[in-house]
């Protein structure tokens, strides 16, 4: 069951792809490029035939688990089903085979989709404008904070601090840092909500922004959001919305209406584009009117007849991507929004929240529920309810693998001890949830009665638990050509 490396399949002289012969007169290589600029030794790429390529990657794919294989209740990741028609749309040659530097007259269809998508996202967010350029959520955060910074600077204000609750995603403080801003972490209330006193104590004339996700990373709606916005705005700071949890609020409430000034969405979460095993994503950023001048270039504009890319924006933060962002991810999200329409999107959030509450209530007798409130699109448990001294939350997660599901997120958010964060999403049926609930109950029983089943898990996977410590201590991060004796 050990899978060969692609390098181990190699044999000199084999080829896996077929290229045409040169149809132009060829010259000596060194007549074109000085010998000093040429490499001495060719890169050691494998030499395998087409059938080897196909079997290798087909076999690797079968050692991987995606949403198409089953339930994926990974909290904070919104692993909903990715509709296939989106893939069809993205594959159309008129989209996939266009060069980013073509004359805009020849790409009007592409620009139209982008223009409309940014407007749709602005409407969903309650914002006045939107850029599609960021390539992922964290990239959206970076773009958003840079816009906020530029805004303050344009007003002659030097604001260098970003307030981040201790329940936040790690990207929030990291983004502040790479934007040259200082993170001020404030303690949350036990239920993950913002501690208003701590916030009031933290804000000041040096505060650039408060970064918040709502629902919080505990899956709970921040009920004091109006008050929070008031505190932040009165201090002259702006409010940043981390859209990681936006799947709970589509058509129900809007960050802009809550008082947020900047929003990023993750198209690869809320808008149903596939995650690709870690990207490509897309992290569009929506802003309120006053921040529009600072959006990255190019901005897509429409004069009623023609779409164009406008680079002439004196106050822009500049470019944040080589071209215009992850276009083919946008195509998928656009297709999704056009498929769902306003009613469909609202139903998405209703069903996502219903599913999460259903799971939460069903599991509450077996797993510690730290906050007895309705959750939004995901719920967080604090480990097993019954005393099971040998079993860690990690063990529970690994045992879930043996039952054929992807486990929930574990040990996040950091403020909940032994956190197990479950996000079912709206694309799962009651039957799937019932089966999952039954498994989770069974594992809770096993943890007490047969703990070795849980601590020794997984047993049904192609590898068992892996030695992560050694991997980090003595990193083997690439293949190396074996030394010939």
């Amino acid at each position, binding site marked *: 069951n050990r899978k060969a490396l692609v390098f181990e399949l190699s044999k000199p002289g084999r080829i896996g792809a077929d290229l045409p012969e040169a149809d132009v007169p060829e010259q000596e290589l060194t007549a074109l490029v000085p010998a000093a600029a040429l490499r001495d030794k060719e890169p050691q790429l494998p030499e395998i035939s087409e059938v080897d390529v196909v079997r290798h990657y087909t076999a690797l794919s*079968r050692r991987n688990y995606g949403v198409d294989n089953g339930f994926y209740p990974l909290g904070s990741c919104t692993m909903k089903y990715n509709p296939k028609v989106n893939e069809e749309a993205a594959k159309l040659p008129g989209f996939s085979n266009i060069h980013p530097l073509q004359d805009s007259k020849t790409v009007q269809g592409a620009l139209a*989709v982008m223009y409309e998508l940014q407007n749709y996202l602005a409407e969903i967010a309650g914002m006045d404008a939107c850029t599609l350029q960021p390539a992922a959520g964290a990239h959206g955060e970076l773009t958003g904070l840079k816009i906020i910074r530029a805004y303050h600077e344009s007003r002659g204000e030097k604001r260098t601090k970003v307030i981040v609750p201790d329940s936040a995603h790690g990207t929030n403080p990291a983004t502040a840092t790479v934007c040259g801003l200082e993170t001020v972490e404030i303690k949350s209330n036990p239920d993950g909500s913002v501690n208003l006193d701590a916030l009031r104590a933290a804000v000041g004339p040096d505060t650039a922004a408060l970064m918040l996700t709502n629902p919080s990373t505990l899956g709970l709606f921040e009920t004091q959001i109006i008050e929070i916005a008031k505190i932040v705005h009165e201090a002259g700071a702006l409010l940043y919305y981390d859209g990681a949890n936006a799947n709970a609020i589509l058509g129900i409430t809007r960050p802009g209406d809550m008082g947020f000034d900047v929003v990023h969405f993750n198209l690869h979460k809320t808008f149903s584009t596939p995650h690709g095993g870690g990207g490509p994503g897309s992290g569009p950023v929506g802003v309120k009117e006053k921040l529009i001048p600072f959006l990255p270039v190019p901005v897509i504009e429409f004069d009623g007849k023609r779409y164009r890319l406008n680079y002439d924006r004196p106050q822009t933060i500049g470019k944040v991507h080589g071209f215009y962002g992850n276009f083919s991810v946008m195509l998928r999200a656009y297709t999704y929004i056009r498929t769902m329409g306003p009613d469909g999107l609202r139903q998405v959030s209703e069903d996502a929240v219903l599913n999460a509450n259903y799971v939460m209530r069903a599991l509450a007798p077996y797993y510690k529920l730290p906050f007895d409130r309705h959750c939004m699109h995901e719920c967080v448990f604090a480990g097993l309810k019954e005393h099971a001294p040998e079993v860690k939350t990690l063990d529970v997660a690994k045992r879930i693998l043996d039952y054929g599901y992807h486990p929930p997120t574990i040990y996040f958010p950091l403020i909940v001890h032994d956190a197990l964060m479950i996000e079912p999403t709206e694309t799962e049926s009651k039957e799937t949830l019932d089966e999952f609930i039954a498994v989770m109950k069974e594992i809770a029983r096993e943890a007490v009665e047969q703990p070795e089943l849980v601590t020794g898990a997984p047993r049904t996977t192609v590898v068992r638990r892996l030695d992560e410590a050694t991997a980090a201590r003595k990193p083997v991060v690439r293949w190396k050509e074996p030394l010939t004796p």
Partner: protein
Amino acid sequence: MAGRHYLPNTESDRQAMLAAIGVSSVDELFQDIPPAVRLGRPLNLPPALSELEVLQLMQQRAAENVHVGQMPCFLGAGAYDHFIPAVVSHLAGRSEFYTAYTQYQPEISQGGLQALWEYQSYICELTGLDVSNASLYDGATALAEAMNMACGATGRSKVVVSAGIHPFYRRVLATYARDLGFEIITVSTVDGQTDRAALKAAVNTEVAALLMQNPNFYGVVEDMEGIADLVHSHGGLLVACVNPISLAILKPPGAYGADVAVGEGQPLGLGLNFGGPYLGFMAVREKYMRRMPGRIVGQTTDLEGKRGFVLTLQAREQHIRREKAYSNICSNEGLCAITAAIYLSALGKQGLAKVARLCLQKAHYAAGRIASLPGYRLAYTAPFFHEFVVETPLPAAEINARLQEKGIIGGLDLATVEDGPDSRMLLCVTEKRTKAEIDALVAVLEGIK
């Protein structure tokens, strides 16, 4: 109800679930939302379309674009029209790859992890460096991350940047640098190559890194001899931004002393896609491994001793290090990296070399023929890979319009991306361009007076 095919729960399911929860309506679940911030109306979006309708809409929008399957394309400048074997999309399109999340649970993610580990190995082989990450967003942001990393590693805040670097990349550098207080010193080019004298003058002990592109934006192969020594002798890093296809024949960054290699991986089997998703790659010398941004896959063993792969060195990353992280990157371009690995596996040692050779030869054939036309001349005498700048007898925009009429996508009008005359065109010739297509281009150019 729109989107019902994506929403499995029926009305009776919903009622049963509400009853189990102990509420009478979904609205109750949203009771924490203050009424004042609730949206009291439907979103102002177009009404739902059926699958048939939405696909027809997208087909119509797609048909409003001219694509490179319809017209031969001589545009490059950071996005390249290469041949992609059919196996690539067939395999990267396996849903187990594209519908997975990041590999936080390695036991059920061995396929993705191994593919990424092999990708890292390929990038190391191509660049001649020790450690690759599992991808960054694109070439431009990879270069910016390299700048951040170099400044972090050296504790310095000046970077010297060659004007031979893609102007879009330099704009991204500027965006990233500004808020971190980095100073960018730009060194101009002479005959399309970075000005060596100016470079020497610019590099000093305050400089964290020298950033060069090779082949550079003008397609020119830079003379890298002695460059690394120059910057190393002042304690700085050499960052090379490279085209991965060119590395099949050109000296790899590791061999000319670069500490960091970055670049745009799009040529490795990714479609043009109007600019994205592309693939930022980065490889570094071992000593910078623990400063590298992005995810890294490592090899290890399971508790039975079987080989396996995991995400490793996560102490560098934002979700552990939070505000002390060197980079905020989280989701990257995993599927693009796997796609590149499939492409490189299919092409293999001989294939990649052949692609590079065909690009080089065809570009030189085209350049030679165009240079022989009256009114046209090559802007530079320096060696080049598969792109070159032509000075044109009429504004480049006019020439492109004429080419478009004749069914050819011309080169990049340089005046649209940098200051300078309007009669400079950057042309790219990949292995996909046939002699007949090149000759057709030449014939149209010849006819323009």
